[in-house]
């Protein structure tokens, strides 16, 4: 996939908000095996972008490379730039990255218990982040700000909550604490990796709403990673579809989910729609299953499961750009008027 052109000083572009995150040609490999290939995208201030994919699609690895948290042995190349930070994040050393994380980039992961220190009261944990990044001058004002953040994420009795330990909270409340921690230093970019997957539906609804409100209030950029199409559709404006370590399609949520162009996106939407069944009452499916990492076919990564694949798909499909930030990589896309009716 070629990146959407960076240098196109068209008049419409000047009205867009500033770029916050710019990823160009990101590759991640272990030994000689490529896990992520040529991922490029831009997220601007105030923009909420979703990244969707099934397990093994490379979505979490993308997030980890942006934050410089790749596990030992995995090598990232390409470039990741963040507004307000000099140089390439991929080239930055751990010292520099630890100043960026929690300050310019913050993250919320799936499992809130592992993100919190079990031996520290949560008020102190939030205050610590404010002190380390010198957002607050002293302990007292940091503690006051921490309580204010706990108010913002809707914890009941925030003053008492600040004095409690993580194990005293439920899963949803812990995720609120993690969110308070993530938003503490008003980050330019919030990365959420399956933040609500482990939560009950009613709790998920509350946490999603808090994330969206917290990001909107700070006019921050958001990268939201999940396998749940409906969650992305509710929380984001733009979506990237990942499969086999590549972005196979991207565009505005409404367009991608009503008029998918890539055959994988089309299959994914069909398979997740439980209200549409055939005459026997059966759901639409994608044949086969997601291959293990490194076992994806060459050329188009989806071709071994695709009903439309031909010989040409042994070549790598080029990126067809439909507008800025939108496009797909498929030799046999759905036609433009072939939409999906969501009733």
């Amino acid at each position, binding site marked *: 996939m070629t990146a959407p052109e960076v240098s196109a000083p068209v008049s419409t572009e000047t009205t867009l908000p500033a770029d916050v995150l710019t990823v160009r040609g990101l590759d991640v490999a272990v030994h000689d095996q490529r896990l992520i290939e040529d991922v490029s995208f831009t997220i601007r201030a105030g923009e909420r972008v979703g990244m969707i994919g099934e397990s093994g699609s490379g979505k979490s690895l993308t997030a980890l490379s942006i934050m410089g948290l790749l596990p030992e042995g995995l090598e990232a190349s390409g470039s990741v730039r963040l507004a307000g930070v000099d140089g390439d994040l991929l080239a930055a050393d751990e010292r520099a990255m630890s100043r960026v994380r929690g300050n310019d980039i913050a993250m919320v992961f799936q499992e809130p218990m592992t993100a919190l220190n079990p031996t520290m009261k949560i008020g102190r944990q939030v205050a610590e982040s404010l002190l380390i990044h010198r957002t607050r001058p002293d302990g007292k004002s940091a503690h006051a700000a921490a309580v204010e953040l706990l108010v913002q994420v809707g914890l009941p009795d925030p003053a008492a909550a600040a004095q409690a330990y993580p194990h005293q909270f439920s899963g949803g409340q812990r995720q609120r604490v993690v969110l308070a921690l993530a938003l503490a230093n008003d980050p330019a970019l919030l990365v959420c990796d399956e933040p609500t997957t482990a939560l009950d539906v009613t709790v998920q609804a509350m946490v999603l709403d808090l994330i969206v409100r917290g990001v909107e209030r700070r006019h921050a950029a958001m990268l939201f990673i999940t396998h749940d199409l409906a969650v992305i559709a509710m929380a984001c404006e733009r979506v990237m579809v990942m499969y086999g370590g590549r972005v196979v399609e991207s565009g505005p*949520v409404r367009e991608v989910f009503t008029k998918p162009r890539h055959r994988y996106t089309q299959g*994914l939407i069909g398979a997740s729609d439980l209200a549409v069944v055939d005459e026997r009452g059966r759901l639409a499916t994608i044949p086969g299953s*997601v291959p293990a990492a490194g076992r994806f076919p060459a050329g188009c990564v989806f071709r071994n499961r695709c009903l439309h694949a031909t010989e040409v798909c042994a070549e790598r499909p080029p990126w067809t750009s439909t507008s800025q930030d939108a496009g797909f990589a498929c030799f046999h896309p759905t036609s433009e008027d072939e939409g999906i009716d969501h009733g």
Partner: protein
Amino acid sequence: MVDAGATVSSSTPADPDAAISVRGVTRKYRRPRTSLLQPSPPVHALRGVSFDVAHGEHFGIVGESGCGKSTLLRILSGLDRATSGTVMVDGTDISDLPERKLRFLRERLQLVFQDPMGSLDPRMRLGDIVIEPLVAQGRPHRREDVAALLEAVGLRADAADRYPHQFSGGQRQRISIARALAPAPRIIVADEPVSALDVSVRAQVLNLLADIVDERSLTLVFVSHDLSVVRHVCDRVAVMNDGEIVEMGLTDEVYENPRHPYTRRLISAVPTLRKALAGATTADLTQESPS
């Protein structure tokens, strides 16, 4: 007689003609003591649950974590005992039967669990896993049975020599289903069978389950936190909250016209593509939908 209507009173006697008939089942647990002076208060996991499932019916149980749905399943399958109340499976009261008399239950009713990795022994070959329910019950079995079971769930017969880790999540769930089918049960109880699966595989497993239940005219009890999955699979649904059934009825009716406030909250909290494309935002998920 199973009535689609809302409630079954705990005072009416259990129905011996139903596949499953549950009356006034409660289950109390005691937490470990935290004080020397007084025992810790009991946890009421089930507070008087009553319902009937007719033969061949697809019955759904929906609720969030801690609502008591897993406790109920354990009691239905004879893995746990009710503190009070009656559970009848195929006309036999299992509430007071000793373990050695539950053999008929293991033949009649089989379970499919959520986590296909945790419920398959990693050191057993597929062939042995699938046939184990028969071995455990000391029933005769042949090698052809294994092949037939694997083929019934869309796996190749030569998979019998392989181990669970060699299969993907969706295939492992197929193996669990094959194992459940081994004793030719009349009732399948599925506990969140697709919650751990990827979207593209979830549809395959739901279709397989539907095929098998239809072909063999089985009774299905399907437990899930996901109301839209239950709506697709089940004719009738019971919504559980805090150890009680707060609403019960035909799935479409409950979905379209929820009466209990908890059901309304549950339905409005589920994000869907339809809602999003109709312009709903995350703030709308936290609102209780108007009935």
